[in-house]
């Protein structure tokens, strides 16, 4: 393991921020959320001015049809209410399909402290950056620094994405994650697992391991993906060569309790939920953040370096040379870490210790598309 907890923690407890109806948060930030690609640079520049702010720049929000448009809007509303976020300022252009005012209204309805503005509404990008900064600072005053509380593993929603099916991942890292997943659930927590490509060649087995209440939803997703090219070709092809056991080792032997729609906050109580999301880390992490994950565990043989603005990412590899070559970017070397050590590390991150991606600060916010750009 590359890092040790920064202080002696009692069992698996950590200090978290209270968020009322939204539960607890393990980070305390103001989100500057562009509703469309056209306002993402302005959102970035607003967030750069305020240390408590992060931005979530993405490439979408306009010229999208039906379900595709709904998914983008739903995802923005989903991430805007992630419990790590104290408040959100939505920034629009003004003429786009996903209107910043609608996203802001939806967030306000969820009791998220929110404000909103648009480039066209205030008369230009210069003005929007200046106004936006004021709004963010005002939200910082109102919403940052809420009461804290002692929390434990059972209070967490853990997001998991295993990025590939190389032997190092499926034989070394995934099982380690699976043990941790089992621990989280044993303590009453929730786990959301992203990445459907690997499940498609094993649909029957997957459904046998899915709770009754989730059967129809999981079946629909697997049938839909069967007749289309996958978003991650390598994972889908490798999954066809693997056994069902090999592709589900992060599940900790648990059944799928619920299917979470991409962009939708997860509404299940405990156990493992499947997120309808591709395996690509940047998109999966956004889906997990929208689902309400406090943090994301990312299994990567390749050492995909990016983090996420809203959820701290823990990078785990089962490949020793990746761990050695990318020492600063990998949090956990699965070849030499026990499940207890992993749990301790995650508790430390929940308590505020920065993960490797938070240290280098390079993050990406991508949203999965399900329709063509028009």
């Amino acid at each position, binding site marked *: 393991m590359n890092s040790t907890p920064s202080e002696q923690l009692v069992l698996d407890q950590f200090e978290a921020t209270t968020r009322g109806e939204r539960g607890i948060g393990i980070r305390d930030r103001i989100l500057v959320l562009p509703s469309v690609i056209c306002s993402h640079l302005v959102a970035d520049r607003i967030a750069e001015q305020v240390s408590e702010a992060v931005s979530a720049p993405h490439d979408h929000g306009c*010229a999208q*049809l039906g379900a595709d448009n709904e998914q983008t809007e739903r995802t923005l509303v989903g991430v805007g209410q992630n419990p790590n976020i104290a408040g959100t300022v939505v920034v629009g252009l003004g*003429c786009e399909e996903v209107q910043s005012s609608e996203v802001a209204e939806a967030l306000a309805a969820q009791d998220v402290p929110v404000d909103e503005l648009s480039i066209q509404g205030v008369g230009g990008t210069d003005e929007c950056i200046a106004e936006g900064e004021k709004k963010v600072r005002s939200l910082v005053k109102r919403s940052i620094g809420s009461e804290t509380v002692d929390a434990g593993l059972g209070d967490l929603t853990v997001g998991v994405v295993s990025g590939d099916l190389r032997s190092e991942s499926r034989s070394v890292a995934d099982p380690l994650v699976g043990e941790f997943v089992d621990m989280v659930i044993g303590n009453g927590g929730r786990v959301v697992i992203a990445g459907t490509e690997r499940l498609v060649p094993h649909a029957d087995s997957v459904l046998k391991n899915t709770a009754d209440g989730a059967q129809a939803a999981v079946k629909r997703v697997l049938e839909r993906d069967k007749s289309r090219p996958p978003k991650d*070709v390598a994972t889908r092809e490798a999954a066809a060569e693997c056994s069902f056991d090999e592709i589900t080792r992060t599940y900790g032997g648990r059944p799928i309790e619920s299917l979470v729609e991409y962009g939708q906050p997860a509404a299940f109580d405990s156990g493992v939920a499947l997120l309808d999301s591709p395996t690509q880390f940047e998109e999966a992490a956004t889906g997990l953040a929208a689902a309400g994950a406090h943090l994301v565990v990312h299994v990567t043989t390749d050492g995909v370096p990016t983090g996420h603005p809203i959820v701290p990412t823990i990078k785990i590899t089962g490949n020793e040379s990746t761990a050695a070559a990318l020492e600063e970017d990998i949090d956990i070397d699965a070849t030499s870490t026990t499940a207890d050590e992993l749990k301790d590390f995650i508790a430390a991150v929940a308590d505020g210790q920065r993960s490797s991606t938070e240290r280098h600060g390079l993050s990406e916010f991508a949203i999965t*598309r399900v329709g063509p750009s028009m």
Partner: protein
Amino acid sequence: MAITFNGYRRKNGDIGVRNYVAVIPISVAASSITSKIAQQAGPWARATPHQMGTSQPSQSREQTVRVLTGIGRNPNVGAALVIELGTEDIDADALADDIATAKKPVDTVTIREEGGALETVETGIKTAESLNESISNCRRERADISELIFGVECGGSDATSGIAANPAVGNGCDRLVSGGGTACFSETPEFIGAEHILANRTVNDDVREKLLDRVDTREQMAEIMGVDLRGAQPTPGNQEGGLTTIEEKSLGAISKGGTTPVQDIIDYGEQLPRGGGLVLMDTPGYDVESVVGKVAGGAQVIAFTTGRGSTTGNPIAPVIKVTGNPKTWSSMSNNMDINASTVIQGDSLESVGERVFQTLVDVADGERTEAERRRLEEFAINEIQPVEHKLRGA
């Protein structure tokens, strides 16, 4: 009398209007590192961040490769730096070699070999600086206007777009075409309802058939999604601005290419010909993706008409913003370059078209647009979605 401008002559004969080191990520995994490299290296370094995955299905991957290669080959790019994680399906070295056939220096940096994200940023900056050294003594020389490829786009349209801004820009395109250059417009969904007009201006039946086929494919996308096109096209902003249907929008949109014959319609990111007259490109109407397609095709300058006030630019090609809406001109003047709303007050299209054309020459010469001043340089690649594959015969 020949109309000329001053541009950077490249070793392969191309002429650029800017002299950048393009920093190009192979996949989304390398994108934030790419942006960091360019941001810290200097204003001469231009990142083209995007969100394409590491293992895309073949049609989508081929399109990504075509766009990234085209961007590297754009004449405004003096040298290119390709950044990869190292395990993507797209081979960075092969892509770099392809860009290098344009006789410009190209380097590759692999994240996995550098020992980490921040180490890669450091190496990237050093490599970019050395690439910049090798192109920094490139001086502008006189070139004929016929060497320009002028891409035109409309976004945030309203009723003034079809009445003022688009016809004025179209007049500018006519001038360039008669001077021997290439004008390109795209946004295929915004031909729907007006495609018969374009079809009647195609130079031959092959082009006519291709054009109608491409429009049909775009229209079918609304059908596979089972929804009315409205909302996506026209957008809410278009509708607030008076555009009721896609037909109305399209009839106003096609005037931005001018009145000359349609020589061809090419694929997203495919190479535009020099001295090619009016050429269409099959792209989505989605602005940022559409502009990127034309820049990947070799357009050195973009004119972008807007009624509602789009503020987007591009990292590689200067974007000239033209508005035909007097309110937008006054309320968003910091983001607009040309006021075409004077047409509504009685100014002739010819005189505003002349202004557009003169601005094109000035910007080619080095004058910065408002988007350039503010470093507004949005970039995104159109991703062919799994649901589209059956439409495209994959």
